[in-house]
């Protein structure tokens, strides 16, 4: 069959709309416009939700794996450490120490080293002060060289001779003509200087850019960092500078000669670092830096399930440091208990509400809602007054003689306190969906069952209860999900055995500032809730949940 005949047959089978286009196409177009209109209508809400809700949550969750701070702050060290075999138990080689010196020096100038110290201190205790002390001491290394060069020629300690040697003529002209208030010129290195003095050129380049952009100071006024003097020593020791003929060639040649004299004092980076803090001689410190150098890490997630990284792979933490597994289990268990006690208490109330005459029902409804409008903190603190050992309930029990004054009941600062207070606080979330479902159950069904001879119990259990299940389902989901993330109430009345995982998340967000770990814990909690929701859907069916008639 030829193509032409096939087309003709297709054409013939199509139904056409009034304007001659195929009906399918025309319908699709109409639907598309409708969909677009609908989308446009919800667009403000959608954008609002994405921008203010979904994006921040994703951003927060992303922190649970993000670890760029190490490779950004110590870029050279990280590269050098790749070569280092931490299994041998030897410290890294000289190149790694020098890289660390340069990285930490530059980070300290930008005040970033302590931030990294805080980050790594989560993994190994002591690194925080290690970085803080080292940042303070770093100038001691370069000053050894700076002083000797300065004694040789004062120009080594001044801004202008350095600038004219390291920067291009055009840059130096611009710098000389610069007046306070003008924009500073861009730094441009002298052609060929990087071949003669590679380390110095690199170090000076950092210094120059940092001074011009961050500090906004003239390079002709500012003497270079001590790091630059150390770099100069490295270059003079390693290479030959006789080929250089630009500005300062003379003083450079003198310095070159000085470096080779036996009296020239030098200092090994490693010794200096160990002097700052003996922990630098600890292989563990280097191992930690290496382990946490990749830009993404599973470390926070391991930590969140009581595990840790080790040279041989992830392993469980010591028994006395495990806490998150326990807290996750406790949170789930207590949320379930709270949900069930809410069901037990809410069912009769909701039943009453939906079956009483309007006037009484309204009054009852206000009683249900009243605590709902009271501040959460007030309600929780009220429970404190009620439950504590010198509290209202204990006082009444002692007065009635039911409890001995010496051994009053402990009802707060434990699981019991949390369950009672949270059941009370979450009760309206159970009553309201139950009520809205129960009020739609036609009373005639119950009457019909009774008239057919069913007992009260059978009527309730076989006729009424099944129709109220969607309300229980909706209330349970609401209460359970709210309970699992609660933290103010457990914090106040939970003591040590009644706290939830959210209390630890709050601690890591606001106190320890370990946001990575908090994000990992939060992600796990989110996944747990989603899995439970999925299970719930499989078992009960989400279609059986009703928030209203």
């Amino acid at each position, binding site marked *: 069959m030829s193509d032409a005949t096939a087309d003709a047959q297709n054409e013939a089978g199509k139904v056409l709309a009034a304007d001659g286009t195929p009906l399918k196409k025309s319908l699709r177009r109409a639907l598309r416009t409708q969909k677009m209109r609908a989308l446009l209508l919800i667009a403000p809400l959608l954008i609002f939700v994405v921008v203010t809700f979904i994006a921040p949550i994703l951003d927060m969750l992303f922190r649970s794996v993000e670890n760029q701070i190490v490779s950004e702050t110590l870029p050279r060290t990280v590269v050098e450490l790749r070569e280092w075999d931490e299994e041998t138990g030897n410290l890294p080689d000289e190149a790694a120490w020098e890289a660390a010196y340069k990285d930490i020096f530059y980070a300290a100038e930008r*005040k*970033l080293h*302590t*931030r990294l*110290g*805080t980050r790594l*201190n*989560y993994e190994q*205790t*002591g*690194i*925080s*002060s290690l970085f*803080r002390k080292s940042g303070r001491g770093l100038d001691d290394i370069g000053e050894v060289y700076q002083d000797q060069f300065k004694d040789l020629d004062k120009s080594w300690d001044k801004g202008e001779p350095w600038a004219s040697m390291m920067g291009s003529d055009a840059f130096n002209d611009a710098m000389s003509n610069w007046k306070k208030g003008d924009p500073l010129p861009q730094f441009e290195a002298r052609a060929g200087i990087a071949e003669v003095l590679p380390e110095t050129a690199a170090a000076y380049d950092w210094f120059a850019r940092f001074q011009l952009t961050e500090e906004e100071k003239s390079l002709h006024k500012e003497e270079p960092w001590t790091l630059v003097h150390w770099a100069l020593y490295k270059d003079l020791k390693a290479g030959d500078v006789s080929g250089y003929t630009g500005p300062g060639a003379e003083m450079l040649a003198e310095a070159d000669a000085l470096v080779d004299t036996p009296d020239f004092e030098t200092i090994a980076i490693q010794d200096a670092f160990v002097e700052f803090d003996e922990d630098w001689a600890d292989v563990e410190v280097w191992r930690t830096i290496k382990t946490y150098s990749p830009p993404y890490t599973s470390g926070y997630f391991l930590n969140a399930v009581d595990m840790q990284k080790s040279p041989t792979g992830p392993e469980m933490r010591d028994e*006395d*440091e*495990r*806490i998150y597994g*326990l*807290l996750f289990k406790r949170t789930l268990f207590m949320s379930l208990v709270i949900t069930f006690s809410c069901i037990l208490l809410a069912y009769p109330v909701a039943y009453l509400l939906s079956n009483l005459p309007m006037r009484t029902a309204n009054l009852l409804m206000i009683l249900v809602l009243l605590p709902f409008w009271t501040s959460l903190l007030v309600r929780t603190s009220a429970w404190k007054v009620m439950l*504590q*050992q*010198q*509290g209202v309930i204990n006082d009444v029990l002692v007065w009635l003689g039911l409890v001995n004054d010496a051994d009053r009941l402990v009802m707060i*600062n434990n699981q019991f306190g949390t369950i009672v207070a949270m059941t009370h606080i979450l009760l309206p979330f159970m009553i309201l969906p139950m009520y809205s479902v129960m009020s739609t159950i036609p009373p005639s069904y119950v009457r019909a069952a009774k008239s057919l001879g069913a007992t009260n119990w059978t009527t309730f259990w076989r006729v009424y209860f099944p129709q109220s299940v969607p309300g229980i389902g909706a209330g349970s989901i609401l209460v359970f999900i709210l309970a699992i993330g609660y933290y103010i109430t457990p*914090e106040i009345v939970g*003591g*040590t*055995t009644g*706290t939830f995982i959210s209390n*630890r998340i709050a601690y890591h*967000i*606001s*106190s*320890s*500032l*370990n946001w990575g770990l908090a994000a990992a814990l939060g992600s796990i909690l989110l996944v747990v809730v989603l899995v439970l929701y999925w299970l719930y859907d499989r078992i009960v069916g989400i279609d059986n949940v009703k928030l209203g008639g």
Partner: protein
Amino acid sequence: MKLTKTLMATSALTVAAAGAFAAGHGMSDSMTLVSWGGAYQSSQQKAYVEPYIAMNEGVSATWDESSAEAVAKLRAMNEAGNVTWDLVDVVAADAIRLCDEGLALEIDPDEDLAAAPDGTSAEDDFGDLLVSDCFIPQIVYSTTFGYRTDMVPAGMEAPSQICDVFDLEKYPGKRALEKRPINNMEWALLCDGVAKEDVYDVLETEEGQDQALAKLGTIKDSVIWWSAGADTPQLLADGEIFMGSTYNGRLFSVIEEQKQPVGMMWDAQVFDLDGWIIPAGLSDDRLARAKDFVKFATDTQRLADQSKYISYGPARLSSAPLVGQHADLGIEMAPHMPTDPENAKNTFLYNYEFWADYRDDIDAKFQAWLAQ
């Protein structure tokens, strides 16, 4: 309601900002100060802010009671690139962390702070209390114990030693301790035979940490763990506990203002500092205002004035002789200061460096120990 409030606040801000440009002194006309709320914040309001505003007409100050979460919030603001605070009151440990994170501005004490009336430089006047390059000390406070005088067992002397806290036979009854390792671990070691000067060396080791937890374990069942400074005063007032740790100013108000039967036990009190930091990243006019205010608010007289309202010791040496009477109660404040020689016979100074390093590690252990 909320929306109107927000709208009003926004327009007020706009007006304030416009005013600042119009004034043209190069200083902003409004400041947002962050503090702890309660009696402490109102002492700052009376001692610093009211006289400052009286001197600088047209300047307004707003308080934000966020000091407890200041580090986290400041970090979030900094990441969002919109720092709305001008001056933040934090404890020294937080100031050190903010400085470490680059969230607080470094200050030059001799340039940014006022010299003492006798000409002593600010650096010497504050002395060792300048624990961080970013920290402007304000007060010395202490964490110490209060006990119910009416619950002391008959025929027994009132508790006067830190180790009485651990002695359930001599002084039965519940205790309240803070729900964190800091201070508790030190006290436990002290009462387990460790010499004061060795406490931190011992606490650095695993065995030392276990030893401290074991000592705390002897009273674990009788301890209510608090997390807010107001908890212990409430527990004491209700007779829930026999003794508990809290900040000395809280105990002062329970004893002197509320007249509860509570006594102070100053032994082994732990000194800590509270002060200001200037957030990094302020615009020039706001920074100028913040610096101007803080120079005024931390001068010798102002720090001494604050002790009229609350029993915390001024951080300047030169302020100590100026400490007078309480503004409302009319009692001499000097004997209620944690730094009073009578009270400071045996003291501890919060070891910032140690806890900056070990806080996360020991806290994990401590919380796991609590949860078991």
